[in-house]
């Protein structure tokens, strides 16, 4: 029985990891784009971006998942997610947009905390805006945002369990199925071991990144 449970939980955890990894890959760059939007000097764009961030951060992720998955079918009688990986795609869209909004505020805080002198030093040396951002500012921003980012990213590991609400087979679902199927409660609690182990690895990883960036002070 134990090996059967481990097999099912591990299968579920692979899905969890998939949601986690793809969400990060999408949300990290999208968050930067949203951050630039919310710092834009073009006011309509800034207002639009700020409104979107307000809505996304102001409503539960679970609600967003349900809205994205069921919304098209209920509103337009057009279930765009009606294909084999449809549920998973809906989950990824919801997670990437949601996390990008949170990341964008962390990026914005980081970018605005860099002294104006760093931008000006690049300017008087004849650099272009993108050279200034990528060659001077970005690494200093990364150094400053590692602690808040690690918080968000560790929250993401556990938020993946929300995808269960639109029936994506991740680890919580896998554990829960043993209650109905085999009258076993411990597999559900055993999922915590997976979460703990993975978050432990991430914590060590973030510690290494912080250490790696400690050679300079900014």
């Amino acid at each position: 029985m134990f090996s059967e449970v481990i097999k099912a939980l591990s299968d579920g955890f692979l899905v969890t990891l998939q949601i986690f990894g793809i969400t990060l890959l999408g949300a990290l760059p999208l968050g930067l784009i949203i951050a630039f939007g919310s710092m834009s000097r073009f006011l309509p764009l800034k207002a639009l971006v700020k409104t979107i961030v307000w809505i996304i951060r102001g409503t539960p992720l679970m609600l967003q998942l349900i809205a994205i998955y069921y919304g098209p079918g209920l509103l337009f009688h057009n279930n765009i997610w009606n294909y084999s990986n449809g549920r998973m795609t809906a989950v990824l869209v919801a997670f990437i947009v949601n996390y990008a909004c949170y990341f964008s505020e962390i990026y914005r805080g980081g970018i605005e905390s860099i002294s104006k002198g760093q931008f000006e030093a690049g300017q008087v040396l004849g650099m272009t805006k993108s050279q200034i951002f990528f060659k001077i500012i970005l690494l200093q921003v990364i150094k400053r945002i590692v602690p808040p980012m690690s918080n968000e990213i560790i929250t993401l590991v556990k938020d993946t369990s929300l995808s269960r609400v639109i029936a994506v087979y991740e680890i919580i679902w896998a554990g829960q199925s043993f209650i109905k199927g085999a009258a076993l409660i411990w597999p559900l609690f055993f999922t915590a071991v997976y979460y703990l182990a993975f978050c432990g690895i991430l914590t060590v990883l973030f510690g290494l990144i912080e250490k790696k960036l400690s050679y300079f002070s900014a």
Partner: protein
Amino acid sequence: MSVLEINNIKKSFGRTEVLKGISFSLEKGEVLSIIGSSGSGKTTLLRCLNFLETADEGTISVNGSTIFDGSSAKKLSDSEIRSNRLHFGLVFQSFNLFPQYNILKNVMLAPTLLKRGSPEEVEAQARALIERVGLSDKISSYPCELSGGQQQRVAIARALALKPDILCFDEPTSALDPALTGEVLRVIKGLKSKDSTMIVVTHEMEFAKSVSDKVLFMADGIIEEYGTPDDVFGAPKSEKTKAFLNNSLERF
């Protein structure tokens, strides 16, 4: 021909008129010190020259060609501003070295990005400049490992790496404790040659007196007095200059 000629530069922030029509010219190889109390517009003037601020009116000409004309309706494009900036170098009061790069890389970064020669040439030139400011032994240190005076010397090398026509210093020693100002001022003095034109905004009167060819005293956004150090320090004409110099040179 003057290397720099500025004419009737005006600049306001909101309703506050900071520069009320500044005109002067500078010959190649001259060192100009700009003195004056805080808020007189010295720093704003330097920032207008470096296009960190855009003057509202007036013209700026370098080597006889007008690079800025406040009366022309045409807004300068980003690339025009960038090429204009390259006529000038600026050393900041707060150094503004790039903390994540070591000293060599700080000096090499801009010439590398601007493709000023092969990587070997850029590095050789950077090493020579770092030696010139006396920091060869710190070449692979990071800015946070250097004293303020050393950081400022690196900032000078970094500005020189792009070979600007005119090198500007914005109160280069104001963020340093007195023990460190000497080394920076000696480096600036050492740069003086027939080819290097410099503008130094400073509160160091002795430095202005001994190093500069011209001294410009600014008060309330206008040039109150302009002349050789002997003229300005020895025989100031304006009452404001006299009062300022008395205050600055007062010994406690």
